[in-house]
């Protein structure tokens, strides 16, 4: 079954109103910021962002903020717990009649992959189990970025980070497989989970619009092409983000009440095209071509899409 957008079919439908304003201290060409900017166009400004320490903490660094929404800063491990506190407080105030219902706000956890895949996982699991009504927006730059690009469980096989360098004993760099946080969330059975990419803005806007209909935990994994950590010129952010999807490395999908749908059918171009754009994979190509490592990455991507095709054929 081919997924069809219901609303967003033309770029001119992207709302012109901004809720993430310019003048932030984030890197030029930050793919995560681009995803957030597009997401906020749908989320609006009646929002409390509950932020876990990371690059995006710099957004609201006193005395400046680019947001016309509220902001609560928490530790890396506890943003979902912070969200629970905010939600509960709002519910209590509304129940007591001290806050009119129409003045309610949406609670959005904003965290990097370090907190989402790693440090805040137990807090997240608790919040989903309690069916907390919140959004979780993870900008996934596949490393602990803010502290200088260290390995995180979201770092893919073969990527070089400062703590998974290309070295004699492990010439491929990171040897782990990227943790599948989408499936970890899905196992908790939340109403809505989606992956998005800033280079597919209509898909992104459509998903945020759809998610609004569901009460409970809603996860968005945003592909955060990161020029600083992935070592490419900021001008290539759109190309890196597009190729990640086209080569099948970053599938665009959603899961509504556990039912997974792929929202875009990629061309499955060779992963090399994607890897070659980024300095963090350069050691796979020079000084010696690490054929096996590249084949390994291609193999995991192929295996993923074979599973998808099989699942879709068998329904």
């Amino acid at each position, binding site marked *: 079954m081919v997924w069809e957008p219901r609303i967003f079919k033309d*770029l*001119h439908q*992207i709302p*012109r109103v*901004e*809720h*993430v*304003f*310019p*003048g*932030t*201290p*984030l*890197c*030029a*060409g*930050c*793919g995560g*910021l*681009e995803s957030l*900017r*597009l997401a906020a166009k749908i989320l609006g400004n009646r929002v409390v962002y509950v932020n876990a320490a990371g*690059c995006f*903490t*710099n957004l609201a*660094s*006193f*005395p*400046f*903020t*680019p*947001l*016309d929404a509220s902001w609560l800063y928490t530790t890396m491990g506890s943003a979902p717990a912070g969200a629970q506190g905010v939600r509960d407080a709002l519910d209590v105030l509304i129940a007591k009649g001290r806050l009119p219902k129409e003045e309610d706000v949406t609670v959005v956890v904003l965290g990097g992959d370090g907190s989402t895949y790693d440090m805040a996982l137990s807090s997240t699991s608790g919040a989903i189990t309690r069916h907390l009504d919140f959004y979780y927006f993870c900008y996934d730059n596949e490393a602990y970025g*803010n502290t200088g690009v260290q390995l995180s469980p979201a770092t893919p096989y073969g990527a070089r980070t400062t703590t998974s*360098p*290309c070295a004699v004993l492990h010439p491929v760099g990171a040897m782990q497989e990227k943790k599948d946080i989408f499936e970890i969330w899905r196992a908790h059975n939340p109403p809505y989970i989606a992956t998005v990419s*800033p*280079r597919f*803005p209509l898909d992104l806007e459509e998903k945020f619009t759809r998610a609004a209909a569901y009460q409970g935990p809603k996860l968005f994994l945003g592909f955060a092409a990161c*020029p*600083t950590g992935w070592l490419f*010129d*900021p*001008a*290539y*952010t*759109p*190309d890196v983000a597009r190729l990640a999807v086209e080569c099948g490395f970053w599938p665009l999908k959603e899961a509504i009440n556990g039912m997974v749908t792929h929202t875009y059918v990629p061309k499955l171009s060779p992963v090399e095209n994607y890897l070659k754009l980024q300095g963090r994979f350069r050691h796979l190509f*020079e*000084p010696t071509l690490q054929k096996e490592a590249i084949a390994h990455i291609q193999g995991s991507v192929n295996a993923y899409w074979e599973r998808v095709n099989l699942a879709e054929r068998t329904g």
Partner: protein
Amino acid sequence: MAGAARGAEPSSTNIKEGPAVISVRFHGRGGQGAKTASRILGTAAFSEGFTAQDSPIYGAERRGAPVSAFTRIAKGPIRERGIIICPSLVVVADASLIGDPAARVIEGIDERTAVFVNSPLTGEQLHTRISLPGRLTTLDLTEVAVRELGKRSALSALLGAVAGRLVGLRSESIDHAVAQELADLGVDASIIQRNQTAARHCYEAVSLVPVETSVHRGPGPTPLRVPAYEPPTRGTARITAGPNSAIRSVSGWRTYRPVLRPDLCNGCWLCFANCPEGAITIKPDGKPAVYYPHCKGCLDCVEVCPTDAMTVERETDVTNK
């Protein structure tokens, strides 16, 4: 801090016996190589037998934001630590930093301070646009980086070479230090060689100004100021006042600027959708417009434009931002 240590027998001219220290302060934007430049200078001095010390400092902000780095060079032990307030030489990788108070470029500069600025303008031309008391010298390192290294931000070796020349280190020491520091960063041998060639060129090309050793010319004691009481409503009003980051200009981050050719624009809005900054707005006629004070120069809009209507122009003038 890379720490202080002593190398082989000293050789150079500018650096005198005794407690005199040459202190060099580098200013750049994150990603331009100011930190590596300070290391190259320190390593080159060390290999000539001097005592050397280098350390960078950067805030919580990211690539593109102001960074400084410090190198101290002396014949004897260096007792100073930390940031350099009164530099002998200031090396500026990006002229737009001079006007940015957060970068603190002008701090501690007086008539005796040597100041190098990476700029296509001459020292005199720069003097007419910005008032800097120091002895000014310039060279267009960005042009060399683009031409020789194919990368606008590959300035570390070039900055290190210029600083080395100005403080009186030998070309061979710079050569060696460039190789060592870039190899430590995992840079390819062929690219290191190109950096060395470009660095040699800059070493020869920079016009000399005298660099004086300084026996710490620190500021005098600071009088203690008791702040007047302010009601709490004053200090925190702004943070609750909504998206105030827009009052900050990020123009200075750019090396290149995107320029729209309206005749080629088909009004598809891809640039508007892909600008991470929200620096592109849509005019009433449906065409995009770049608001330059909000543009960091990432050039994502140029990359996505299907009709090549977004073109690229290099930023040259420090004052037109």
